[in-house]
C-alpha cells in the first residue's frame, strides 16, 4: 500500500483507556497533515464546585475526580491547604502519606501493565482475552493491585475515595496488627515485583526514539512521590508555587480538557519522565533490578514507559516494606490546624505524572478559588506529538487497521485518564 496515498483516519472509540475521546488523522503525500486527540467528554467543573466549600470538604470532593488516583488528588490538595494555613505536618504524617501513596502507585501501575498495556505488546484484544493464555501474568497483576488497594484501605478505610486523610494528618493511625499483616504480604509480593521488572524488559517493544522534555518532581534524597521541586531535563528547577511562571494551560477547539505547555512546548510527565530524571534516587535493590535489564537512561523511547511502571512498582513495594517495618502508631494522628485566609500550592507525583493544585482560602477557611492541573492534561500535547512521529515512523504504507492499532497503542502507553483531565478515545480512518 502506498504511503503517498491520501489517508484520513478516525478512531471513534478507543478501548482500554478511561474516558471519552477520539483520534482524527489525515495524511497526504506520505505526510500527516492533521492529527487531533479530540476530547469531547463534558467538562466536570470540579474547580468551580470547590468554590465556597469549607476546607474540610475539599479532600472528599477532589477524591471524586478519579476512582483510580483519589489519593493523589487528596495528597496534593492537603499539601496546598496546609501551606495556606501555615500548618507543618509532622515527620510521622509525612512518612505515612508516602506509605499510603505507595499503595496508589502499586494498584494503578499493576492494573495498567497487566490489563491495559500488556495486551498490546502480547497481541490480544483485551486483558480478559489475554488472561486465558497468560493466566499467571494476569494473576500477578491482580495480586499486586489488591495489595496496593489494601495499603490504601489501611489509611483510608476504603480503597476507592478513601476517607482517612485530613488537614494536619490523618483522622486516626492505622491499627498496628493490620499494618504488620500488610508488611508480611508486601514481603511476600517482593518476588512478583522483582520478576515484573525483568518481564517487562523482555517484551518485544517497538523501537521509536523521540525527542521530548521530561518533567517531574525531584526530591533531595527520595524517589519522588509526595514532594520535591519541579524539574526538567532541559534545566528547569522550580519551587512548586512557581509552576505558573513556566507552565501555561490553554483551550483548543477539539478538546474539552485544557492543554498544558512548558514555555510554549509539549512535555512529558509520568513514569518514564520520573525515571529519566530520578533513577539515581531509586533504592539500591530497585536500581540493581533496573541495571540488570540493561535499559539505558534517560530513555527517549516512550514504549519504555511499561518498564518504568514496573520499576516503580518494585520501588514502592520496597518503600512500603521499609516504612511498614518502622511503623508505630501516633495519636493524635494529626497536628492542630488554625484556619485563616491564605493561598497554598501542592504538587505530588500521581501514578500518571505531576499533579499540581492551588487554593485561595478566606478567613473562614472556605475556598475562594481552586486550580487543578492533572497529568493527562499536561500530556495531551505530548501524546499528539508522539502520535504524529510514531505513525510516520511506523509507516503510512501500513493498512488502516494497523495504523489504528498503533495509534491506540501509543495513546494507551500514556495510561491517559480523560475523566481526570475533564475521559477517552474513538478513532475513525478515512482515506482520500
Amino acid at each position: 500500500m502506498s504511503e503517498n496515498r491520501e489517508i484520513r483516519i478516525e478512531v471513534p472509540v478507543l478501548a482500554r483507556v478511561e474516558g471519552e475521546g477520539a483520534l482524527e488523522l489525515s495524511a497526504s503525500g506520505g505526510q500527516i497533515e492533521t492529527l487531533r486527540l479530540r476530547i469531547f467528554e463534558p467538562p466536570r467543573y470540579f474547580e468551580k464546585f470547590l468554590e465556597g466549600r469549607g476546607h474540610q470538604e475539599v479532600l472528599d470532593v477532589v477524591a471524586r475526580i478519579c476512582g483510580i488516583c483519589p489519593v493523589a488528588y487528596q495528597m496534593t490538595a492537603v499539601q496546598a491547604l496546609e501551606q495556606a494555613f501555615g500548618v507543618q505536618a509532622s515527620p510521622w504524617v509525612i512518612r505515612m502519606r508516602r506509605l499510603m501513596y505507595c499503595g496508589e502507585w502499586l494498584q494503578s501501575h499493576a492494573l495498567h501493565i497487566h490489563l491495559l498495556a500488556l495486551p498490546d505488546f502480547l497481541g490480544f484484544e483485551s486483558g480478559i482475552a489475554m488472561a486465558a493464555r497468560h493466566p499467571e501474568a494476569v494473576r500477578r497483576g491482580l495480586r499486586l493491585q489488591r495489595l496496593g488497594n489494601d495499603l490504601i484501605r489501611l489509611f483510608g478505610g476504603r480503597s476507592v475515595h478513601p476517607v482517612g486523610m485530613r488537614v494536619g494528618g490523618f483522622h486516626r493511625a492505622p491499627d498496628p496488627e493490620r499494618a504488620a499483616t500488610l508488611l508480611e504480604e508486601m514481603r511476600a509480593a517482593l518476588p512478583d515485583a522483582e520478576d515484573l521488572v525483568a518481564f517487562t524488559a523482555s517484551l518485544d517493544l517497538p523501537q521509536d526514539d523521540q525527542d521530548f522534555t521530561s518533567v517531574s518532581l525531584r526530591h533531595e534524597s527520595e524517589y519522588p512521590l509526595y514532594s520535591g521541586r519541579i524539574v526538567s531535563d532541559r534545566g528547569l528547577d522550580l519551587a512548586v508555587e512557581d509552576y505558573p511562571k513556566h507552565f501555561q494551560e490553554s483551550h483548543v477547539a477539539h478538546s474539552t480538557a485544557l492543554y498544558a505547555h512548558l514555555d510554549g512546548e509539549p512535555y512529558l510527565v509520568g513514569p518514564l519522565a520520573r525515571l529519566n530524571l530520578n533513577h539515581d534516587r531509586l533504592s539500591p535493590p530497585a536500581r540493581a533490578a533496573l541495571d540488570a535489564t540493561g535499559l539505558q537512561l534517560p530513555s527517549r523511547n516512550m514504549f519504555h514507559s511499561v518498564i518504568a511502571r514496573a520499576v516503580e512498582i518494585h520501588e514502592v513495594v520496597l518503600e512500603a516494606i521499609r516504612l511498614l517495618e518502622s511503623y508505630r502508631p501516633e495519636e493524635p494522628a494529626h497536628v492542630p490546624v488554625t484556619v485563616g485566609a491564605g493561598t497554598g500550592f501542592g504538587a505530588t507525583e500521581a501514578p500518571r505524572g505531576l499533579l499540581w493544585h492551588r487554593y485561595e482560602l478566606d478567613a473562614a477557611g472556605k475556598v475562594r478559588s481552586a486550580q487543578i492541573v492533572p497529568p493527562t492534561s499536561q500530556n495531551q500535547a505530548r501524546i499528539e506529538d508522539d502520535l504524529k512521529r510514531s505513525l510516520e515512523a511506523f509507516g503510512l504504507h501500513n493498512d488502516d487497521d494497523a495504523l489504528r492499532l498503533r495509534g491506540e497503542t501509543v495513546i494507551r502507553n500514556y495510561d491517559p485518564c480523560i475523566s481526570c483531565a475533564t475521559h477517552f478515545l474513538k478513532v475513525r480512518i478515512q482515506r482520500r
Partner: protein
Amino acid sequence: MTGDDLGWAAIAALKEAGLDHVAELLFLDRPGPALVDHLQGRDRVILIDAMQAGLVPGSVRALSHEELIVSAHPPSSHDLGLAEALALARALDCIPAHLHVIGIETGPGLDGETRSVAIRDAVQVIQAILSGNRSGFGPDDAAPRFPSQRGR
C-alpha cells in the same frame, strides 16, 4: 447514585436476620478485578448488586452470569465492573460451580418504601437459596422465584 448501595443494604439486612451464621457475608466496595480473588476457590457464591436494567425501581431479579459476561466490554482501568470482573474470572477459570447473581433495580423512582420492600424481597430470595431451595445450595434445583415480579 441513589440506590447504588442496595447490595450493601441487602447484606446488612441478611446480617440482621442472623444469616451470617449460615454464610460469610462480605461488603465489597467497588472491588473491580479484586472480585476474582473473592471468587477464587469458592464453590458457592451469591453476588448481590444494585442494577439498572430498565425495570421498575425495586425489582429483584436473578441474573445469568453468562449473560452478564457476554455484555462485558474491554475494560479500562476505571471502568471494570461486575460483568468485566466475571469475564476475567471465567478466563482465569475461577467461576464458582454454583454462582447466583441477584440484581436489585435502582433508579430515580426508588423511594424509601420501595427500597424497603426491595431489600425485603431480596432477602427472601437469598434466604431461600441459603436454606437449600435453590440451585446448588440444596436438594431443590428449581429456578429461583421472586416475591416481586415488577416490571414484567
